[in-house]
């Protein structure tokens, strides 16, 4: 295929993924009309969608909407994160009616508040909950995680009126693994400069996986991988290589990502939930699938530590410094969703580690509404200028966690 047509095809794939991301519930409605199937929504970030997929449903991770909060103001206070407020708002406005059931099991206090409000708002929707253990290195963590997933599966079966068979679950796990692997390949190619994907485009790739029929998604992502060649436009060499960190439940707004890259940076890695965090870990394909899902839950936090969990034997800051070394990133922008308590707890750890390692970082608090982009732009520009000056200085700083960081 000619380069031009390949680029065109890639563009149309990304456009399709972007379309899904812009209107995830619209996709669900269309899918439902097309297939007659059930749509099972879930809260981020730890519900294994494989389970709902194996039951023949479309698993959909509920996304923060673009709309300003209206009816949701009557259910949650404004000092909650954008994700919880938006989810409750969507429920109150009837937007989530397309979902036949909602499953979740997380423990963030704001999510619990949202779950209660969603259940109250959606009186005809089954809201299934079983709390996942968030203390990750107790002797009973694995067993409890498995028990939680089993409870969720039982309730899902009760809702559907039929069993979710192990074989079907294994099949779903294999499909999801393949999709995760394809997305991780794009990450590797981006670091190696073999594909030019903006941060927004990468978000489209990952976020759409949380919404779309997985087989359909996999086909598109594999086509993206196959279409990328050495002739793909490489990122601007003079651009500052950045790592983006944070933003758990909700996706950073594309306009923010575009602004950051528009200031002369290129994002080469991230640990965003709508990014590498979501795709980092595969589920074991053999043996008891529930056991495998429980292991996945634990492995994921060891691989990409999450501030919503507590695990005394892993360090998020060390992970970040290591990831940046592998990505050859020159600085990090921390995207913190305003009012996100887990992030607020861990941020000083990251800040201290980065200061000690001499690695520059910039904290940006994001909001559901009224983000002052121009003000943020000035800060990003100043930050990138600082990083650029370091290039000339060529300092050698010892990282607390990973040895030398140039």
């Amino acid at each position, binding site marked *: 295929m000619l380069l031009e047509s390949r680029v065109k095809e890639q563009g149309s794939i990304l456009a399709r993924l972007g379309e899904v991301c812009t209107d995830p519930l619209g996709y669900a409605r269309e899918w439902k009309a097309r297939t007659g199937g059930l749509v099972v929504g879930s809260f981020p970030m730890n519900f294994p969608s494989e389970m709902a997929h194996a039951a023949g449903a479309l698993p959909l991770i509920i996304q923060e909407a673009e709309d300003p909060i209206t009816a949701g103001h009557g259910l949650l206070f404004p000092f*909650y994160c954008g994700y919880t407020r938006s989810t409750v708002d969507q429920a109150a406005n009837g937007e989530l009616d397309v979902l036949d059931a909602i499953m979740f099991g997380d423990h963030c206090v704001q999510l619990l508040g949202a779950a209660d409000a969603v259940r109250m708002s959606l009186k005809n929707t089954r809201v299934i909950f079983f709390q996942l253990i968030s203390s990750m290195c107790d002797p009973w963590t694995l067993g409890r995680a498995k028990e939680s997933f089993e409870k969720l599966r039982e309730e899902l079966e009760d809702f559907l009126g039929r069993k979710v068979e192990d074989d079907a679950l294994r099949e779903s796990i294999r499909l999801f693994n393949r999709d995760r692997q394809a997305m991780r390949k794009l990450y590797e190619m981006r670091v190696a400069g073999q594909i030019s994907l903006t941060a927004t485009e990468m978000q489209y790739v990952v976020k759409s996986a949380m919404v779309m029929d997985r087989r359909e998604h996999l086909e598109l992502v594999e086509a993206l991988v196959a279409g990328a060649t050495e002739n793909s436009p490489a990122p601007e060499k003079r651009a500052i290589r950045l790592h983006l960190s944070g933003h758990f439940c909700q996706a950073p707004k594309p306009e923010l990502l575009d602004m950051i890259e528009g200031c002369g940076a290129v994002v080469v890695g991230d640990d965003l939930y709508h990014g590498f965090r979501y795709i980092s870990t595969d589920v074991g394909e053999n043996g008891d699938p529930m056991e495998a899902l429980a292991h996945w839950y634990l492995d994921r936090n060891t691989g990409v530590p999450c501030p919503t969990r*507590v695990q005394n034997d892993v360090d998020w800051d060390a992970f970040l410094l290591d990831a940046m070394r592998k990505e050859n990133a020159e600085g990090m922008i921390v995207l913190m969703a305003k009012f996100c*308590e887990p992030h607020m707890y861990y941020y000083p750890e990251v800040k201290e580690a980065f200061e000690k390692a001499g690695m520059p970082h910039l904290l940006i608090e994001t909001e559901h509404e009224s983000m002052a982009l121009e003000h943020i732009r000035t800060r990003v520009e100043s930050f990138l200028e600082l990083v650029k000056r370091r290039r000339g200085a060529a300092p050698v700083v010892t990282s607390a966690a990973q040895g030398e960081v140039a």
Partner: protein
Amino acid sequence: MNAPIQAPTPPSAANKLKSTRMAGKLVNDYWEMVWRAKEEGKLVCWYEGSSINPFLEAADIVWVHGEAYSAMLAARHQEGPAQAAAEERGYLRELCSYARTHLGCAVNNQRHRNGSDSAFADVPADEDISAKLPPPDMIISAYAYCSTGQQWDEMTSRMFGKKVPIFNVSIPWIWASGKDAGYLRGQEWEETSKYVAKQLEEMVKFIEEQTGKPYPWDRLRELMRNVKRASELRLEAMDMCTAKPAPATLFDWSVSIAPINQLPCTTDIVDYFTNVRDEVAERVRTGEAAVPKEKYRLFFDGIMNWNKLGWLAEKFARYDAAVVAGRYTHMAFWQEPGLINPEDPVMGMGQNYLICPNNHSSPILIDLIMGLCEKYEVDGIVFHATRTCRAFTNPMFMIAEEATSRLGIQTTMFEGDVADESFYKDELLNTRVEAMLEAIDQKRMAVV
């Protein structure tokens, strides 16, 4: 030189219980004991949330309840240095102010010990009690409902270089799933109770590892006999406040939280609540009111604003409003003594941890609150929208809606915080409460 002329202090409008004055002395004695712990060679455990202190006290470990320390600092208006230290380390203002204040104490403690080059280094000022807290030898996390508790404990552990052993007890939220779900009943309740009790037994093994001694179960049984009795007396006294006029208010019960929540579980707490119960009974007998001209009876939903405890007590009394009950005071702190079997205490302790006022999802929680509103015959609910305590604010709008639709009572909200005074807006409270009281008046006139 003549002394400056001072304006006369207006007489207090709130007729507070006299018996609760003893709480101040007991609290001071307790913190003095905590501050002496290292000199006396005692092990120190930091914890938040659930009242696991009897487990520690029995093992002769000095216990430090993080919220209690933050609340004490806020009530004494001495939270500033701790909060400034936390902010300097990077903790943002929207973070739970209990946690922020307590973590600030840890920052200060570390800095003074390590002599860092920070502005907060060197010897703490005499009045800065944030740095007096002895560092922990162990941390136990057993926090119901709010995710913040577990992360706060983890951060404390990390602040001490992860050198302090930490033990986590996971206390799941009661979602009320299944047809048999309800308050203290149903499969979910039974399973969750067992899960928590099992972890508490493991926690006892952890304590044994720290002390190097077999766990003194007899001592725990003795302490839990006192806790059970103190709890029964407290609830008995609270129940008497259904009387009109009410003999005591939420502010008296707030002062009495420390004796039931974290003071030593000796017979002192039994004596304390015996005195409180007797005084309340006497007031009921003589018709003595906590708010002399009680005209309104209100329910207070939300955690206490510790910077403003006395201030709020006076304010509501001046409105002739008796705040007769609240979610924080009337639905927590060994709330179900009937579940405690002192001879075999673990299960009942775990179940009491599970029924912290927020740990039931809204269908159960709302029923309980509506029940209290009816029992105390309240005219309205005041919601304290506690800025940094989402555990309390989560269900507030739903409670308000049910109060209006189910009971037909008035509600209002004001913004404040547990330990950060800067979120409190006095004028907002004034206008909103006044509007609510006016609405109550109008409703009464319409009925007449």
